[in-house]
């Protein structure tokens, strides 16, 4: 039975679905897959250990932590919030478009500006809904309010996901490199990162279209 080798995938799916401890789930998935495929236990430990050490680059961001610790204590996020707050006569679409560009550039340079808790809730959402109310000239309906929340949260994810691979030493780029190396293809980190730029640009453009369409809808909603 060849298919029994897929048990590791099943373990991951179930483990993640039931929110079990991720470290343990991944280790168990690896060990069980190895055992059912006829590898002996020590050899499995060797493979895991060796690969883990070879992939230390994915966690190189540990040495970024002291820098983050300093600039966060000395008010980087507060400064970013202040600068974004200075945007004048904005519409919801404008605020979200500017946020998308900032978030994407930050993500591409591996700067920690973003987060639903740190930025969307305290800053982007209030600004967006205030701007939407100003351009509508009245209070938002419950449905529109819900849309504003959804879009604000979504732009955070768009900027985060589609731009992060532009940073050559990001965990995802290193994972791509090691995945390809396992299959016998050696590519450089900068080759992968430079291929990721198209996706970033397209995602920014699409976000701008999506939020501008929302702007039109809100303004049109005034008449009814």
């Amino acid at each position, binding site marked *: 039975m060849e298919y029994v*080798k*897929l048990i*590791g995938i099943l373990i*991951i799916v179930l483990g*993640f*679905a039931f929110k079990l401890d*991720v470290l343990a789930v991944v280790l168990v998935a690896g060990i069980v897959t190895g055992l059912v495929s006829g590898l002996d236990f020590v050899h*499995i430990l*060797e*493979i*895991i*250990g060796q*690969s*883990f*050490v070879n*992939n*230390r680059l994915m*966690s190189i*961001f*540990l*040495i*970024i932590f002291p*820098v*983050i*610790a*300093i600039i966060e*204590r*000395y008010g*980087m996020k*507060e*400064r970013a919030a202040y600068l974004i707050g200075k945007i004048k006569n904005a519409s919801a679409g404008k605020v979200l478009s500017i946020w998308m560009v900032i978030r994407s550039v930050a993500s591409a*340079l591996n700067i920690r500006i973003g987060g639903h808790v740190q930025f*969307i809730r305290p800053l982007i959402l209030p600004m967006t809904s205030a701007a939407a109310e100003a351009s509508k000239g009245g209070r938002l309906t419950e449905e529109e309010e*819900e849309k504003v*929340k*959804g*879009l*604000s*949260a*979504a732009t955070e*994810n768009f900027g985060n996901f589609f731009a992060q*691979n532009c940073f*050559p*030493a990001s*965990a*995802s780029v*290193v*994972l791509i490199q*090691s995945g390809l190396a*396992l*299959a016998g*293809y050696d*590519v*450089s980190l*900068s080759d*992968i990162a430079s*291929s990721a730029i198209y*996706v970033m640009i397209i*995602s920014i453009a699409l976000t701008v279209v*999506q939020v501008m369409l929302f702007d039109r809808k809100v303004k049109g909603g005034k008449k009814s």
Partner: protein
Amino acid sequence: MTDFLGVYFPEFFYVLCGLVCFDTAIRARKNEEAKAGTMLFWTLTGLIFMLGKALPSAVVGGMLVVMGCLTVTKQVRIGRFTESTQEARKAASEKIGTKIFLPAVSIGVIALVLSFVKYNVVKDGTVTPTALNGAIMTGVACLIALVLAFIICKPKISETREDTSRLLMQVGAACLLPQLLGALGSVFSEAGVGEVISGMISSVVPQGNITVGIIIYVLGMVVFTMIMGNAFAAFTVITAGIGVPFVISQGGNPAVIGALGMTAGYCGTLMTPMAANFNIVPCAVLETKDPKWSVIKAQLPMALIMIVIHVILMLVLGF
């Protein structure tokens, strides 16, 4: 010299990573709960970073199993920290101004510039230009940024150590997840999991048609990411099982296909409640009426259009 840049210099930065972990282990002795477990966890992490190349692989594997036992029994906890107050940060940000972004931006920019630096490796008389090791890129950038941060902010060492340990404990074992998934990928590849998947797929779809291969790879990434809730986990399985046999070995550019494969997975992340951190938690944070689908609904059009765009980009850029 070449040997130094490729082999020994990167280790210097991993030693620094190890020191960050050790400092956190030392801080853990002040933890209210799970003192011993937390200290042991970060000490082992630090040792693997620092001595990774020197320790036998099986020993590292064993250490990871011990770490897994610690996290599954909840013996790794976050200590109690006194964070800086909102007022203090606000006052500091008014004093320092926009300069505060300089260290953060310099990490990104320096790493980006260094990623294009090439040096020559001479092996058996042939000279090959080689890119710098990724650890050197990030490591050098971080050290410069750290110096800048010290010059601009003049922080106390004790508070920086305290904040660093707090950040590390907050991220916790999750920061090792990508690395561990990479290791899982290696076990899968040794066990032949990729072959099983590609065998299943090729019994339905013939190999050789590039467009069909690309569509299956992109959809495979999307669907698996939706099921697993994690594009990294899906990437290790689907790229070996579908991406390589159906797309890359048909003449696709591996760097382009790999990069697009990962972001295709992110389209799946945008549509699945399994990715709770990104899609469900924000609903709670923003107090939406619909506690589960508000964010996913807003992301759906983007995700679907981006899936199509990924197929097109792979065809245009990858071949």
